[in-house]
């Protein structure tokens, strides 16, 4: 009734090709953007930004990155934590080596460095597939964490092996370090998320994305119709690692400020981001956001309800949180194996027909 294509005429190809061809979708997208950019920055405090928005936004970037690799190109990767660590350590080395250059360039450079590392560790994907590739990327995960623990150059020879983000500003407003304002870090991450999502969305709709999907669906057939598996797979690894590197850089510099590689970028992180992608929906940009929201916000919500609202003991609540999140993951995947994104698509389809279901 409200949600329909009819009456929404397109007179140019450009109009017809836009990301949100349906008017209702488009306005919803504008509304979300408006709220995110123009309303939330005025309302957030430190708790909302540091406990909810920053992790959600940063994990969204990581999930988008991994979704390109796993969801669009079909290359399973368990190296996400390691690649995030590359982004974090790259931005740390750049921040401390070139303090006068803007942090924005450092974050992009960290993404680029991670892309190179990602391509390097993606090379085995030319020969091996599926679970075997997962094991190869698992090696990347452990090797990179070991490397950053082992070589003191990466952490500037600090006594504890930790890296700490010094204060850096954008237009005079601190965005890293201790004296940041909630709205500033929120907006910085939001801009990165928006740009990443736009780039990813348009890449996946274009030639490159179609090549990735061809490789994913059947690599031999793709090769026969002229898709070069080398460039397709390597570009997927590069683009994916670029986003993951950016998320790692933001995770360290803006969100945590001090990081210990084994704890922050361990194998758990790889699984967490992979679960986000699977729960959100493989091969969907919206799914990356939905998955990140599910796994970042739900634990905080459960904890606040149980401990803050109902006054449960903290340990009981923590265990209950594991149980509920686990149970919900299973329930969701049983009911909808294609993730939250598919759920959303079904809802849209139903809305389109409503109130006449046939």
């Amino acid at each position: 009734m409200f949600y329909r294509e009819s009456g929404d005429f397109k007179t140019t190809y450009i109009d017809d090709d836009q990301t949100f061809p349906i008017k209702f979708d488009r306005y919803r997208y504008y509304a979300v953007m408006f709220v995110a950019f123009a309303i939330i920055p005025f309302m957030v405090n430190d708790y909302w930004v540091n406990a909810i928005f920053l992790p959600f936004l940063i994990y969204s970037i990581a999930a988008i990155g991994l979704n390109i690799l796993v969801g669009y190109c079909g290359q399973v990767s368990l190296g996400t934590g390691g690649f995030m660590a590359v982004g974090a350590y790259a931005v740390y080395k750049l921040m401390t080596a070139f303090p006068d250059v803007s942090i924005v360039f450092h974050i992009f450079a960290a993404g680029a460095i991670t892309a190179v590392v990602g391509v390097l560790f993606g090379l085995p994907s030319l020969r091996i597939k599926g679970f075997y590739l997962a094991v190869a990327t698992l090696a990347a995960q452990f090797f990179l964490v070991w490397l950053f623990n082992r070589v003191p150059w990466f952490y500037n020879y600090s006594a504890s092996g930790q890296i700490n983000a010094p204060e850096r500003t954008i237009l005079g407003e601190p965005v890293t370090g201790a004296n940041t304002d909630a709205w500033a870090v929120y907006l910085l991450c939001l801009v990165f998320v928006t740009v990443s999502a736009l780039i990813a969305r348009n890449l996946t709709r274009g030639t490159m994305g179609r090549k990735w999907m061809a490789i994913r669906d059947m690599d031999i057939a793709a090769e026969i119709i002229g898709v070069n598996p080398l460039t397709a797979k390597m570009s997927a690894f590069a683009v994916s690692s670029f986003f993951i590197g950016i998320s790692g850089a933001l995770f360290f510099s803006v969100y945590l400020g001090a990081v210990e590689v084994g704890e922050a970028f361990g194998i758990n992180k790889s699984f967490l981001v992979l679960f986000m992608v699977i729960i959100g929906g493989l091969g969907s940009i919206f799914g990356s956001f939905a998955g990140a929201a599910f796994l970042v916000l739900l634990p905080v919500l459960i904890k606040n309800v149980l401990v803050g609202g109902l006054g449960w003991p903290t340990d009981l609540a923590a265990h209950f949180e594991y149980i509920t999140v686990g149970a919900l993951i299973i329930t969701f995947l049983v009911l909808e194996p294609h993730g939250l994104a598919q759920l959303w698509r079904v809802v849209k389809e139903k809305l389109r027909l409503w109130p006449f279901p046939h």
Partner: protein
Amino acid sequence: MKLKLATLALGAVMAAAPAMADLVFPSLSYRTGPYAAGGIPFADGYADYFTLLNERDGGIGGAKANVIECETGFNTEKGVECYEATKNEGALVYQPLSTGITYQLIPKASADGIPVHSMGYGRTAAKNGDVFKWVFNYPVNYWDGASIAVKYLLSENGDSLAGKSIALVYHNSAYGKEPIRTLEALSEKHGFDLTLIAVDHPGQEQKSQWLQIRREKPDYILMWGWGVMNQVAIQEAANIRFPMENFIGVWWSGAEIDVLPSGDKSNGYKALNFSPVANYPVLDEIRSVVAGNGMAAGDGSNIGNVIYTRGVLAAMLAAEAVKTAQGIHGVADIDASMMRDGMEALEITEAKLEALGMSGIAPEFTISCENHGGNGQAIVQQWDASAQSWNALTGYISSDNDVVGGLIAADSAAYAAENGLEGNCN
């Protein structure tokens, strides 16, 4: 999805805000995960002591203490969330019981003006109060610990460790890496060989590390471990028949829970401690007033063990700092900056401890603007497996200030330069 969850979370947060109590002590505890073995007794001791003060004395100086617990799971991301969730409740002091979270909180809490007390952990250089205005690590820190252990070994070997070899088995994190610099300086000074052996989080798998120890046959082993890593290491040491009396853990590797799983084989294992276990009268009061009335934070089984005692000590030091602050400012309901003044003027004497019913639970020390770390003293204790008790082998040993003091000055100067800080003690 996002919007709906956010709205729900907002409602939950609003509902969560508890009534403002007078003195708020956030307890960033961990009762879950691989480090819960140490996290639970500490959190219990911390909470029980404040409950005792509320029940017995009606609070501290007339103001009630309110402990807000927040589960971190020893995870820095959750630690940040807990910090942000509790800091606006009027938090007076943070004691996160995690070096990783302490590193996270040092800049944040300094910017927000809330003191951090990392008692026997955290960033060692924070002892220099001239640079670290809001951070305290009295009564002892890791570099002191490394020095005390070496001093003890010196005394066992006729003041010479030349030609001996010492292995450091450490948790591969900021915590475990802390003593390395000091041990390297000490190995140069005393001429012993130092082997570094890292154990990755969480430390359940240590076969290769102990194989290396078996091969290299060090004379002594020092351990910087925590949580499940301790039990595994002591079991592995027993398996390779390493003489337990040559195996010394730091104070976080010297609790009952660490040695009990290996049974009799752990007999003779040594550990440092700055809060010796004893039958302090205060523990009896906790048993009768707190646990007896069903108000204990845990199930009561931990009361009196090593880590619980240390939790009580942490709470006592916070409460004494509050009393000092109340004395300075003349108000009962102090805020975080007054708390800092109280911590900076804190004086712990034997007479004070005696009056509190915990004579000997901590070394005597006085805090000043320049010295946020106390005197750096600890004892060496030994596990008696048949009696299942820790016996003190020495009195309080002081650290080698020539080495530790120089390292602290260098590290804090580097931090000050990195962050453009100027001294605040003038």
